């Protein structure tokens, strides 16, 4: 029996692996389509219908490019860099619960296998560990290239990740306090009813987490490690062919994983309003096994809907905001997010003492009021045409 569970688990992991890769591949296509549509263009539409074969064409192009290693580069580290980036990116989706469970009958006993790579009770910690390893891919690659631009990109990536990881971690401590567990499944199940989704109980934490997630993924407006205008290509200046492809691909996988993570932590994961009623209705009408599996399938689809929305959001922001300046980035991280996140933890903790779940709204409201007053008191700026 254990073997069957193991096999089912193996299949789930394999399927998740494939899904991750396919989504990452089509995110590159989606990115270009979204970019085009936001700029009133049409985007790639030549390869296959609506350009759907574009990722394959890109991959083919990448494979046929010259795989170049600079003579002064540290050869093994140079190869290790993209591998590390890819490896850590692929590892992190293992603990995300994609749905309730798959049920199958064996000798008239029902077995439930959770729809998740593996359920560990320190899921959040695991993701943080793996994600913070991800920066080593960038750092090793940038350092090994033996190029000043690459090195600068790598340094930026490292310092940016250090400063944003703290705020990232602090922002979800409030959630962990409310759930009392590090297990992602427990966090998801905590948000069973719609108004207890963490985005409603933790609005401030959500904003901080989202912003830090952008910084962690090195996405615009925080894509300083690879900013073309200053650093040629940043840490991947020297890379070509599939090694470069790995870096770019890892970025999209990271985007997928962060979207999944955000949906899990703040948007109720696979939960949707009236999920239990729908599940019960399906089980009574279709039988315990089919009904349950169908309900899980619906959850799966809903969860991916949320993920796709966030992937879209990542792209939407990328094509809206310009890149932050480096000092702005650091100021934002250290002087705004970390104090705010700590304040959030304190206020949430105080609220929990009195059993108030929505305590962190207090900070949000105070901030909105302060902002509004400062805006109304600010001197009106006149726009005068420039004379020269």
């Amino acid at each position: 029996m254990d073997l069957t569970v193991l096999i089912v688990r193996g299949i789930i992991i394999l399927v998740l692996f494939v899904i991750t890769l396919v989504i990452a591949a089509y995110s590159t296509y989606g990115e270009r389509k979204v970019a085009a549509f936001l700029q009133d263009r049409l985007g790639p539409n030549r390869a296959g219908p609506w350009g759907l074969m574009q990722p394959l064409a890109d991959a083919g192009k990448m494979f046929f490019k010259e795989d170049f290693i600079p003579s002064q580069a540290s050869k093994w580290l140079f190869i290790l860099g993209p591998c590390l980036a890819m490896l850590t990116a692929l590892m992190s989706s293992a603990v995300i619960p994609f749905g309730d469970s798959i049920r199958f009958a064996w000798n008239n006993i029902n077995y439930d296998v959770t729809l998740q790579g593996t359920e560990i009770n320190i899921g959040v910690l695991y993701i943080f560990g793996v994600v913070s390893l991800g920066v080593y891919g960038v750092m090793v690659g940038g350092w090994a290239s033996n190029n000043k631009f690459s090195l600068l990109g790598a340094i930026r990536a490292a310092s940016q990740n250090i400063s944003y990881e703290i705020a990232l971690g602090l922002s979800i401590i409030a959630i962990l306090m409310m759930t009392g567990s590090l297990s992602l499944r427990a966090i998801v199940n905590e948000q069973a009813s719609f108004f207890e989704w963490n985005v409603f109980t933790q609005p401030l934490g959500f904003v901080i987490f989202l912003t830090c997630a952008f910084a962690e993924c090195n996405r615009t407006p925080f894509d300083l490690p690879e900013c073309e205008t200053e650093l040629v290509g940043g840490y991947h200046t020297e890379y070509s062919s599939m090694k470069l492809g790995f870096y770019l691909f890892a970025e999209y996988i990271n985007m997928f994983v962060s979207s999944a993570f955000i949906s899990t932590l703040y948007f109720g994961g696979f939960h949707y309003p009236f999920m239990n009623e729908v599940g019960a209705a399906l089980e009574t009408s279709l039988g315990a096994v089919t009904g349950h599996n169908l309900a899980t399938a619906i959850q799966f689809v809903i969860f991916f809907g949320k993920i796709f929305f966030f992937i879209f959001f990542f792209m939407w922001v990328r094509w809206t905001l310009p890149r932050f300046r480096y000092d702005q980035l650091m100021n934002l991280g250290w002087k705004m997010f970390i104090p705010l996140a700590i304040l959030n933890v304190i206020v949430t903790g105080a609220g929990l003492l009195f059993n108030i779940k929505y305590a962190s709204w207090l900070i949000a409201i105070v901030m909105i009021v302060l902002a509004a007053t400062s805006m109304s008191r600010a001197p009106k700026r006149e726009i005068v045409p420039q004379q020269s």
Partner: protein
Amino acid sequence: MQLTNRSKQVSNKEMTLAEKMYLPAVISGLGITIRHLFRKKVTIQYPEVKKYLGPIYRGHHVLKRDEQGRERCTACGLCAVACPAEAISMVAAERKKGEEKLYREEKYAAVYEINMLRCIFCGLCEEACPKQAVYLRHDRMVPVFQERDQVIYGKDRLVEKMDDRYVRAANSEVKATPTEPSLTRAAT
């Protein structure tokens, strides 16, 4: 000097708290971009859809005939002199008796060649010609060539066919799109 009234004075004033939070500006920016998502796209899908480029587009050269079908060119060589790319070459010949139906002037171009690989489609030949003999059509492009022996266009491809006369008027009603003849018409 002020060219437009769109320039803005850059100010270095302290940001207010709301501005320091970035979020209001970020959200309004997101609103702007999402509206563009639903706008009509400006892309013209080029090889399938072609745009009318106006009556002054400089495309395929044509050596005009006059109303009676006589070649106008008198092989004066002014176009070849004017051509900055030195793309034109010709051999002049004298009109024989009985050829008055063919050539308008007493001297004509027996050979007239334009090297399309050199031509930059500047239209200076058209301007230089005293006989209104050479024009750059606004409704047809020089087709893409793959071989080097296709690039020199002789009189067979330049002299206007009688059943395919070229007219150009300013504000022309002929809103023809420059097309490659090989794609649109059967080769004549």
